[in-house]
């Protein structure tokens, strides 16, 4: 019996990187989160309202008990409507109700480091993400749109927790806070600074 067990372990060991750590969960996980984002800095000059229209989703591959790498995307929309006002232009004035929107779609590579063993009740982690983001700036004067679409570099440090639904469960509750930064410049925006809170689920699939 003992030799059989050793044999199984040996086979698993031969399967490569997955056996480099005590396997509580399969290494590949997917997460989907609802996101709320608060603009900071010059972004508040454009729209200072908290965005409740957002989500984030990603894949994470666990290299060992602590370290994982992955990809993440998502969507966040900032929206603000301003009452009619007169804006000064180069040669005159324009009276308009302004509707300001910014739609952000990041595509980021991520690295996360877990601060507890995979069998812990609560698994805190820290992360860093970097990549590019599609920024769709659309400022409406009345019904007339002034629209710009760019890709820009984006970086994001993150802290969060994963809480398994039972010991060894492949399904975990996820909550995190991210700081999103991008050197994005557009009219009144001199850089993109946002604190984003995410709540969702992580599922280990393979």
């Amino acid at each position: 019996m003992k030799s059989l067990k050793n044999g199984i372990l040996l086979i698993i060991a031969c399967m490569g990187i997955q056996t480099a750590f005590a396997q509580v969960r399969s290494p590949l996980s997917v997460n989907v989160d609802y996101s709320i984002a608060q603009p900071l800095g010059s972004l508040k000059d454009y729209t200072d309202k908290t965005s409740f229209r957002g989500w984030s989703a990603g894949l994470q591959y666990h290299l060992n008990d602590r370290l994982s790498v992955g990809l993440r995307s998502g969507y966040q929309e900032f929206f603000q409507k301003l009452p009619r006002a007169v804006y000064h232009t180069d040669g005159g004035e324009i009276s308009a109700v302004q509707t300001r929107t910014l739609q952000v779609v990041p595509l980021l590579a991520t690295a996360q480091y877990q601060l507890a063993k995979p069998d812990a009740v609560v698994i805190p982690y820290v992360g860093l993400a970097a990549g590019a983001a599609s920024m769709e700036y659309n400022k409406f004067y009345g019904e007339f749109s002034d629209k710009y679409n760019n890709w820009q570099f984006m970086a994001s440090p993150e802290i969060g927790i994963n809480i398994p639904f039972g010991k060894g469960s492949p399904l975990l509750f996820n909550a995190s806070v991210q700081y999103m930064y991008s050197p994005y410049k557009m009219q009144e925006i001199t850089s993109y600074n946002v604190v984003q809170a995410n709540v969702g689920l992580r599922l280990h699939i393979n």
Partner: protein
Amino acid sequence: MSAMLGLAVSISSCSKDPLKDMTDEESRIYVTNRANGVDFTSYKTFSIADSVAVISNSGKNERALTDYDKKLIADVSAAMTARGYTLVGKSAKPDLAVNLTRIDNTYSAIYYDPGYWSGIGGYYDPFYWGYPGYGYFWPSYYQVYQRERAVSIDLIDLKNPKNNELVAIWNAMLRGSGVWDIANVDSMVTAVFAQSTYLTTSK
């Protein structure tokens, strides 16, 4: 990358439509432009066209005097008078001419700008203001570039023609939903004069 862009497009489709809950009033914009270096206090008298030019990209151009047009003429005249300018007949050598134009760009999506429509039959030829053979000079362009109806109010300098051209010194463009609705004339004319504080005979 194209797959990623496709993803971005589908993700964006869950966005809020900014125009969905917009009222006609909110949809309208009132754009004013002035020529550089013009001293508006140097003009004292004005005359206004006796009808409104209607230019359309369907090719039908005319002058009209509907109830809307009468109200527009009356409101702009009253606003100019309130700023100190004296209304005189066009034969009394006014300092300023006021041209009024309704633009119907709904027929197709080609754009219009004053440099173009001032050569169109419906628009007031400088001949009307006593300057046969002259053209108009527009210091900047105010384009109507989508399918829409708009209204243009132009102030033309009749005192200082340059190189056989009458110079436009001020333009107000009313754009958005309901600009051809008579109920909105008062508020629209009030708005363009209110935002052009320099348009006065006194400093």
